[in-house]
């Protein structure tokens, strides 16, 4: 009887710890996306699949191409990383915030020049989209998604 009680207690503890740990390890996908209108658009990248409708509706472009990206696993919530293309780079520094969200400092650089800086509390269920500068006949869009 005691052995069964121990097994039961261990199972409960294990499920509690594993669910807590599973919640603590999350990946943030950061992307520099070039949006433009073309006669034959290429398929949208997999990372943007669930946002395709929203992006097209928001910006009015029919093609979205990733020109720079980064996928960062947040272990302790205090990491920094860079998603870069040839001329642009997005620097992200994270701080642990409340459950299910991360406090991020974002800096968009055009080569060495800081174009935009923002602080945001990124939630797991809510992607962040930033409208960047016009580039040629297209638009630079920044995206952050907790996967």
């Amino acid at each position: 009887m005691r052995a069964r009680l121990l097994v039961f207690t261990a199972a409960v503890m294990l499920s509690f710890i594993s669910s807590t740990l599973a919640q603590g390890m999350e990946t943030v996908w950061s992307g520099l996306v070039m949006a433009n209108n073309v006669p034959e658009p290429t398929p949208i990248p997999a990372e943007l699949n669930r946002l395709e409708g929203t992006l097209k509706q928001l910006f009015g472009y029919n093609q979205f191409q990733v020109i720079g990206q980064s996928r960062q696993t947040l272990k302790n919530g205090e990491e920094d990383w860079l998603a870069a293309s040839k001329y642009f780079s997005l620097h992200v520094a994270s701080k642990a915030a409340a459950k299910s969200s991360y406090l991020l400092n974002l800096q968009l650089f055009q080569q060495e020049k800081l174009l935009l800086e923002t602080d945001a509390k990124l939630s797991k269920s809510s992607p962040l989209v930033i409208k960047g500068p016009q580039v040629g006949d297209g638009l630079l869009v920044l995206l952050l998604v907790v996967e």
Partner: protein
Amino acid sequence: MKTFEENWTAWLDGKLTGKELVEFEASLPDKGAAELEKGDAQKLRVFLKEQLGEHAMANQEFFHHQLRQQIESDSVQTAPVESVKTSAPESWWTIRRLLWTGATSLAVFAVCTFFIMRPTPNGGQSTYLTQIINARVDPAVSPNATISMFETKEDKVTVLWVEGLQTLPSEYAAK
């Protein structure tokens, strides 16, 4: 008018008297055999009275008898249950314990889920949506830039809308 059988039974029991007795004995075809049969019947009656006759009980004996009968009937009723109990192997996982264990597990799971999943109060704002705390552009680089923020309800997307950034040539779209 009595039948022959009624008269025969009454004669065997010695209950025929007077004229009835005389008439019945006269009607018997073989009085010797009948007398013999009557003697046997009387012997049998006496024997049965001796062996099976009711035995009068005293009060104390009567109550003892009642108590014994009650105890016997009670033990007959409980005996099958006990035999079933002893014949089945004892197991810790009885139905009642299984139910209790299941209910306890569900309760523990619900409590754990509640503490893990509960949203943290955050000044009335939902923690399920990304919030933009602040945003700024370099006024020297983009003096006409304006910033606005909104959320789309469909995908819960938070949008930082920056207008007026300096337009760049198309080669900046390179990977």
